[in-house]
């Protein structure tokens, strides 16, 4: 059995209502292997962002558990880095200080000054912003700000990178650049990543595995393994077939009537693009 970095079991999310509880997401499972990139794909309102916050230890789930390297996750962990939808840069710090932010916090592993320096330099270089290190967030473009946020994650050398639609606010071209950059960085550092998105193409281009969430309350409608090598832009046919498959699954789920009290007996949908994709077995 392969090693599991991050594991989620039976995660349920919801919010309190006047009478009882409104369930948003039910019974979500995830097992992230080292170096793997998983995309959690789903329409708005299925609790994707909340789910990521649970995986990051920033929020309690209504039910279920998360463990990192076999240990239950109690809260934010130094081995986990989160990139939010918004770059969340601190406007009073220069780009460089933003990248360094948090490295010297008491609960982070202690770094020698030289190591710290090297990590910051390396992270800024990795996202190609050496020329702007003295600039302040107000002077950065959206793409540059998002790169800075990514560099801040990299400087911590996390084992797991959690990304919540980090490119959602970027224009098409910048977005494609950022996706490529992310792939390079993940490959170079052998980081595992969980990416939240509502963009099917982003999921298809970036991930080793796609988990599709949908329905009300949401659950995992299916998962697909993608074995295509990078870069994938040229693999339009294979990806196209998969795209249709995912959309079909989503549509089929939305046509099913409101779920009754019993759980849906639908088995996990599996990919069937011959030769390239194989069904997932866990």
């Amino acid at each position: 059995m392969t090693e599991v970095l991050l594991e989620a079991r039976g995660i349920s999310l919801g919010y309190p209502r006047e009478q009882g509880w409104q369930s948003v997401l039910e019974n979500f499972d995830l097992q992230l292997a080292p170096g793997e990139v998983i995309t959690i794909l789903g329409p708005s309102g299925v609790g994707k962002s909340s789910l990521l916050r649970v995986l990051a230890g920033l929020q309690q789930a209504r039910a279920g558990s998360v463990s990192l390297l076999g240990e239950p996750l109690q809260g934010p962990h130094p081995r986990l880095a989160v990139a939010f939808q918004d770059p969340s840069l601190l406007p009073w710090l220069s780009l460089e200080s933003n990248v360094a932010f948090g490295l010297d916090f008491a609960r982070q592993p202690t770094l020698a000054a030289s190591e710290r320096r090297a990590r910051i330099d390396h992270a800024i270089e990795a996202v190609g912003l050496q020329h702007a290190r003295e600039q302040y967030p107000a002077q950065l473009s959206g793409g540059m700000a998002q790169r800075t946020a990514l560099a801040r994650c990299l400087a911590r050398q996390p084992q797991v990178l959690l990304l919540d639609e980090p490119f959602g606010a970027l224009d098409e071209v910048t977005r494609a650049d950022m996706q490529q950059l992310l792939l390079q960085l993940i490959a170079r550092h052998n980081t595992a990543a969980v990416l939240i998105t509502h963009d099917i193409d982003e999921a298809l281009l970036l991930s080793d595995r796609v988990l599709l969430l949908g329905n009300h309350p949401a659950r995992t409608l299916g998962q697909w393994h993608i074995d295509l090598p990078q870069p994938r832009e040229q693999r339009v046919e294979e990806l196209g077939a998969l795209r249709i498959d995912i959309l079909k699954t989503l549509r089929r789920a939305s046509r099913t009537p409101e779920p009754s009290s019993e759980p849906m007996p639908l088995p996990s949908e599996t990919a069937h693009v011959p030769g390239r994709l194989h069904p997932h077995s866990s």
Partner: protein
Amino acid sequence: MGKHAIHGALGVAGLFGLILLWWLGVHLFGEADGLSARFSPQATLGSLIELLGQAEVYEHIWVSLKRILIGLVLALLIGVPLGLLVGSYRHLEAATTPAFQFLRMISPLSWMPVVVMLMGVGDQPIYFLLAFAALWPILLNTAAGVRQLDPRWLQLSRSLSATRWETLCKVIIPGVLGHVLTGVRLAIGILWIVLVPCEMLGVSAGLGYFILDTRDRLAYSELMAMVLLIGVLGFMLDAMARGLHRRWVHA
């Protein structure tokens, strides 16, 4: 930048326009060679140059600036921690807001007789009145700053496992500082206005004192020179406060 240059030039032109109006006012409405001639720009500038050549005026300026600084520091020492508290707790805010708004709207100068009775004449009542005047903008702006802290910054610091102390020092205080500096700028404006009448209270140095002194000596061109000087110094203080704010906010 071209735009900046144009704005700068327009500003300078406006100042010259002001001097022209001043000159016109004295010229048209006053009798030639009468009392009013002593208020004219020419006489004032002459006196100002003469005053600036003497050591005395610098002493008065220094005393006044020192009072401003002490008043401001006192107001910051009280206003910032109080503002952080009030901004952090909704109930405390609800409990204190009407009282603060009430106190804020009482002209600090109206406390003058009470303060002099309690503290006697001298620097102490001036420090008290100045601190009291400067407290409100600092307190209220700090509290507003806490309320407007970006929740994403707090989420970030949490995701980096920051301790409470780290969050306070690295996120909350720097995040509020821009608002505190806005408060400081407003406070300096108020301080400068309140200072001059405060210094007319039985002290023997300072710009306010010097105004009364010139009046008593019937040195009207010197009086106008002091008015001009107060304006120039206030303008510079405000520019400094603005510069500080800009430096911090990087906007």
